[in-house]
């Protein structure tokens, strides 16, 4: 399989603190990759460099051979990278379907159209995307009234609007009930399985990670400390020490997984 994404020697420091150091990995076509690690390990920083919100101090990122570094987020989006946010970012003063329509309007380059009625554009496509994430029943609701889990699903629909090659999901299931978490990630896995899109996600819920990720990368203090499948990571002593812990809470949780 070919590599969709190649990350080489990515480094970033903030005022002397090395947030990300020499991170190096590949993502294969159709792969579902998890990036885990303690808070402050550099996961979000990594993400922000992949999609252009931050400029790395060193290193390169290429998507299907095109260099991503140096482009603003909107360009990277047009190159085929979609994303969802750790803290949901949606247009709260619009309805659910309007949110998806905005992404479609942008994708079809009609943002400077001053005369059409925005709400009448791409309705069918938007509804199809909502159906994909089972949100079609809520299409007409104000986004500000949605439950958090629904917002996350909406974000996924928005992120898929321009048929991205790569989807970046930053803590996609944070704030969702366990059942919803698994459902959302199962849905994502399904989308990945259909082909055409590869996913990198960060996550704290190990159930979700171990249940769906094809491969797991572990970051600690900005460095990649482990890489492998679920069982490899689970038994890695270094990972246990810095991240998973050995206490009762986790055991209870993982026993259920």
């Amino acid at each position, binding site marked *: 399989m070919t590599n969709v994404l190649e990350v080489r020697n990515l480094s970033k420091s903030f005022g002397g603190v090395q947030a990300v150091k020499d991170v190096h990995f590949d993502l294969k076509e159709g792969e579902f990759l998890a990036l885990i690690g303690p808070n402050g390990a550099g996961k979000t920083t990594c993400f922000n460099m992949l999609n252009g919100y931050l400029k790395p101090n060193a290193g390169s990122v290429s998507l299907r051979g095109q260099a991503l570094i140096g482009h603003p987020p909107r360009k990277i989006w047009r190159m085929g990278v979609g994303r969802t946010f750790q803290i949901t970012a949606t247009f709260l003063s619009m309805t659910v379907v309007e949110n998806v329509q905005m992404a479609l309007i942008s994708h079809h380059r009609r943002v400077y159209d001053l005369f059409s009625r925005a709400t009448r554009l791409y309705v069918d496509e938007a509804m199809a995307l909502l159906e994909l994430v089972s949100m079609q029943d809520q299409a007409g609701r104000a986004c500000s009234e949605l439950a958090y889990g629904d917002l996350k699903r909406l974000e996924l629909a928005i992120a898929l609007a321009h048929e991205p090659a790569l989807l970046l999901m930053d803590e996609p299931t944070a704030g969702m*009930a366990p059942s919803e978490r698994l459902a959302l990630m199962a849905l994502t896995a399904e989308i990945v399985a259909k082909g055409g899109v590869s996913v990198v996600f960060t996550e*704290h819920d190990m159930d979700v990670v171990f249940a769906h990720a094809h491969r797991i990368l572990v970051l600690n203090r900005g460095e990649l400390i482990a890489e492998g499948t679920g069982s490899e990571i689970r038994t890695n002593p270094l990972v246990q020490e810095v991240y998973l*812990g050995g206490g009762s809470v986790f055991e209870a949780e993982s026993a259920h997984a």
Partner: protein
Amino acid sequence: MLDVTNLGAWYGRAQILNGVSLSVGENEVVALMGRNGAGKSTTMKSIMGLVRHIDGTIRYAENEIRGNTPHAICRLGMGYVPEDRRIFGDLTIEENLEVGRREARPDAPEWTQKHLFELFPNLAERRKNLGKQLSGGEQQMLTIARTLMGNPKLVLLDEPSEGIAPVIVEQMARVIAELKREGLSVLISEQNLHFARIVSDRAYIIEKGEMRFEGSFADLDGNPEISNTYLAV
């Protein structure tokens, strides 16, 4: 100690809670469980006086407190730890604690900075640091410590395990156990059944703004369809 009956809450025109009732007894840890958006945080905020449009009754320590301002409720001995931490980023840790400081109460344990720094040693090391310089886990500790500075009898803990690493979750469980040992009552909102089971005495389950279950964890285990329906673990 806390008795909530028929609580309703609205944001704008949208009704979020509908007839929610719950109670917390003396030195009891009670879990309020449910999915995200089920109404856990809104229940807590409503109890604390942070939601403007509510109805029903909220009795706390023999007082009707619905309609009271948050500060008045706090002064009756209720502490609130928000899910999004809301520490004061431009204040030092010591100053953050100072904001929470209130007079000692005869009926509740008294917390001092010194005592809290023993409970949260990481904070002690960084007492002169600004709140925004802390990591997520440290911020979570600080927000609890800050609330304890008010010497509460009852603490509302909104999703303490959310968004933090498993190692910190373990530490959190120990802190809650310590609070119970000190004689506090705790209402904790939680999505994680295992965490809730470890730290609390009994549970409520809320869904779409309505209470669906109340009872012990044994009851819950005896009715798997409930947890399957509303928590579906």
